[in-house]
């Protein structure tokens, strides 16, 4: 089928519209329908994977229709090695959300399912849109459902968190809208055709100061989304207040819209400015790695701890992107998927015990491994994946990022590497205090073991953690040509050549490094 991307994109929206006719009281039917719709979407996205041709660098499964021809805006979709796994991550995590919240959402279940389905479609749209304005439309469309999810189904301080989340993001994205219009007209004055197609805007001639301004307009929007230090303050609030499903999607997919934006737009649109300011972003990323880890270390609240660990882990992704070499960028994309899997699973697990004990404080737990052995196993695997234990996915991503960025930014990479150690400290400490040792609180003796739906939600995540950990090349192979092409665009300019010349270490492709590391 040629319009597989459209099917994947519109299936959740069509299901959401169908849900409107369900009576409010039929909670189980609504949840079942939502789950089925999201599984159908996942199957459709597997079709994308099946049709994806390895070794092709450019966009595949391309669809293009005129949308607003007067302004050169098209409904054009496509997928390449950079977006492929992120689409699959989105379609995987949505059924996971529905499964995990099967028994926990009692308030307005219909609106809950509709919100998540629309959110899923918008997130898929972000990753498949190949027109800048279409991308922007989906980018904004993700905000509203997440705002409602946090604000309606969230915790005690949900309103503050929801509004903060919305305002932070919209501030960045409206400035990006200005940048989008400006870029479109720069291209128009340059070539005489008005278009917002991403591939045609690559290589638009821009005056240096204009390129700098546009670079910051786009980078700010994505840096808020990632979030990069010091723009991260909305994230702990949003995560702590969001319901478990909201946290899974927020950490699992939405943060990746920021890192994806850097890769798809900032790097290839503004190669000169990227080369010039890569140091700044790398510095912020590494500060984020360390800062996030240190703050996570001292959190008494489990969910906050995982939230700050996201700041730390996403810092690695940004480091990998702005190190600007094949290995680090491939590692960065893989790490986006890894973080979605492991942090999604961790938030899910925190939700599981919160549901049973209604507290997230570490001090209220201890010895849970005795009462909930199955749950403890899942939590343990997810945590080890997040720490980066060899054999699980986190190790591959972090290793590639560090190996790649060491070639271009050795000093910052050494500092960032300590973040891995810190992650081991705070996550192992979390496990130790929650699951091991004697049972100090009476309430913890009779905690219900993990339920069928929670197991069903966790199993696919754990399988993928092991799969990526053992056979990373299955995943890396598909992104290699696209990343190569991206680097060609970025490295074409003089400034970036100068930067590469400054950094004398030889460059390897990812597979070489993997062989040397003996990961295969």
């Amino acid at each position, binding site marked *: 089928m040629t319009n597989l991307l459209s099917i994947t994109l519109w299936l959740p929206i069509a299901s959401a519209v169908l849900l409107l006719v369900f009576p409010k009281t039929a909670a189980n039917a609504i949840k079942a329908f939502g789950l089925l719709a999201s599984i159908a979407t996942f199957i459709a996205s597997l079709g994308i994977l099946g049709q994806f041709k390895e070794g092709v660098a450019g966009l595949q499964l391309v669809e293009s229709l005129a949308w607003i021809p007067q302004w050169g805006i098209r409904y054009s979709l496509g997928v390449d090695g950079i977006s492929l796994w992120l689409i699959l991550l989105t379609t995987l995590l949505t059924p996971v959300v529905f499964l995990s919240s099967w028994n926990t959402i009692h308030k307005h279940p219909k609106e809950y399912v509709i919100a998540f389905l629309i959110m899923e479609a918008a997130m898929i749209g972000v990753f498949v849109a190949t027109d800048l304005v279409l991308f922007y439309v989906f980018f*904004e469309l993700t905000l509203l459902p997440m705002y409602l999810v946090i604000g309606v189904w969230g915790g005690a301080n949900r309103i503050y968190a929801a509004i903060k989340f919305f305002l932070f993001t919209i501030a960045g994205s*409206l400035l990006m809208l200005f940048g989008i219009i400006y870029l479109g007209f720069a291209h128009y004055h340059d070539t005489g055709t008005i278009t917002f197609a991403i591939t045609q805007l690559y290589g638009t001639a821009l005056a240096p100061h204009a390129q700098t301004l546009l670079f910051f307009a786009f980078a700010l929007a994505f840096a808020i989304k990632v979030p990069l230090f010091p723009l991260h303050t909305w994230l702990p609030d949003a995560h702590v207040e969001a319901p478990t499903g909201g946290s899974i999607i927020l950490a699992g997919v939405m943060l990746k819209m920021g890192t994806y934006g850097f890769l798809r737009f900032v790097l290839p649109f503004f190669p000169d400015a990227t080369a010039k300011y890569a140091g700044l972003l790398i510095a912020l990323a590494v500060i984020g790695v360390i800062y996030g880890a240190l703050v996570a270390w001292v959190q008494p609240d489990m969910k906050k701890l995982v939230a700050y660990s996201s700041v730390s882990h996403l810092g690695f992704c940004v480091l990998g992107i702005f190190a600007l070499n094949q290995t680090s960028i491939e590692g960065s994309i893989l790490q986006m998927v890894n973080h979605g899997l492991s942090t999604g699973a961790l938030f899910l697990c925190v939700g599981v015990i919160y549901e049973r004990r209604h507290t997230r404080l570490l001090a209220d737990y201890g010895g849970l491994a005795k009462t909930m052995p199955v749950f403890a196993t899942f939590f343990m695997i997810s945590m080890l994946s997040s720490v980066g234990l060899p054999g699980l996915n986190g190790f591959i991503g972090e290793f590639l990022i560090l190996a790649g960025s060491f070639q271009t930014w050795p000093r910052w990479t050494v500092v960032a590497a300590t973040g891995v150690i810190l992650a081991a400290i705070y996550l192992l400490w979390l496990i130790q205090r929650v699951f091991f040792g004697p049972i100090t609180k009476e309430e913890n003796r009779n905690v219900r073991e993990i339920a069928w739906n929670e197991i069903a939600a966790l199993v696919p995540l754990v399988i993928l953690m092991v799969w990526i950990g053992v056979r990373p090349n299955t995943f890396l192979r598909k992104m290699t040509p696209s990343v190569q092409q991206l680097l060609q665009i970025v490295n074409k300019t003089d400034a970036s050549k100068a930067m590469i010349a400054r950094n004398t270490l030889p460059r390897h492709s990812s597979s070489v490094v993997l062989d040397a590391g003996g990961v295969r």
Partner: protein
Amino acid sequence: MNLTPLLEAGWMNAILPELVLSLGGIVLILFDAFAPKLRGATAPLAVMVFVAAGWSEMFIVGGDFFGHTYQISAITVIFDCTFLLAALLATLFAKAYLAREGFERGEFYALLMWGTTGMMMMAKGLDLLIVILGLELLSICIFILVGFHRRIAVSNEASLKYFLMGAFATGFVLYGTALFYGAVGSTNLAAFSHYFAKADPANPLLTIAFILLMSGLGFKLAVAPFHGWAPDVYQGAPSPIAGWLSVAPKAATLIALVRIFASMTPVIQQASWMKMVAALSILSMIIGNAVAIAQRDLKRMLAYSGIAHVGYMLIALLSLRDESVAAISVYVITYALMNIGAFGVISMLAKNQNDPQTLDDIAGLGFRRPFYGLALTICMFSLSGLPPTAGFIAKFYIFKTAVDSGHMTIAFIGILTSIVSVYYYLRVVYFLYMKEPETADLHAADAHSLTSPLIDADMFGTGALLISLIGIFTIGLFPTPLLDAAGAAAHALLP
């Protein structure tokens, strides 16, 4: 007197919509006088008149009429349709409102029709006197409509305020026109074009005349710093009228300004009069959006947001190109749909006119009255310019025009103030869905929700809301036909 030279062939066809509306108003008043028992039928009758006027737009002929004082073209058809849309929505929302308040009268709709006729004259006038005549016809209708609720103090206050300020404003417009007449020797815009082609931009007489004219028209636009009346008047006016008032007169004034400004080129650029317009725009965007944050009354909040929206529309006016006129026409149509829709929801939710419509009054309504909640939410998101609504397309067009013609700074200020505006529009959604009503009201509210059906029996209001919502999404998702029509029409006006 022999009028033949003034009455060109086909003049009847040219002013067909105006004729339909004027006669329709008279019929409604007579109907009300002779069949007072059938007052319930006045609203459907009014709807028919507005639809008939819209239908008559298909038969009009373009060109200049009445001795080059009245121009009919594609752009005037678009604006006519905007006025008719605004009046139609106001009529549909007013039906239940008037029935509830107990004064369903034919003259209410008749005044709406004549006001609409006045706006059509403003939009078509090629002579400043025609514009002023239209403005006065419109203003008199507004004075009465704002104070229509004559037994309520706040409504009277609003009417008096609008009357006093409006009278002053008209005076300013007349002074400005008189001074222009002194310089040009005519009030005809064709003569203006001729004169301004080689006028001295440093002439202080012209500058003073321009300032006076802009002050008067700025009042009608509710643009800062001439906006002081707007919050009080909107708050006191019947809600459907407030919605209509916040959109239609502004649209009429804007299209009149386009013609006037176009006739003043190139002096208007040379004499830096456009800088004054830019200052008005920036002030409106900043004051409107900043003060709206402090409002808890929904109608006052929408008044301040309206001030900001005029600021955005003025951005497009800065570059007098066909694109800017097209952008303004798309914006006013969109603004009519979303703002009258929002006022309509407020009107339908109120128990009576004295009932203040504050944010607390709509707490938790989103789940209790799902259709109204959803409609208000969509209007708010469209007003804040988020995709995939019409508001996004309209704002995108404005900013695109500004960037294309090099007005970077003001476009940037527009973006920054938009960020501020998201806060107060979002707050409405927050109250709708995330806030529980005060406990004292809770039982009453629950009882109310049990008795009130999913969609209220107010067929007219529900229909108007559906028109608004369908319009918002149609323009938001498939703007191409509208952009084509507006672009072609604007190109014919300012080639």
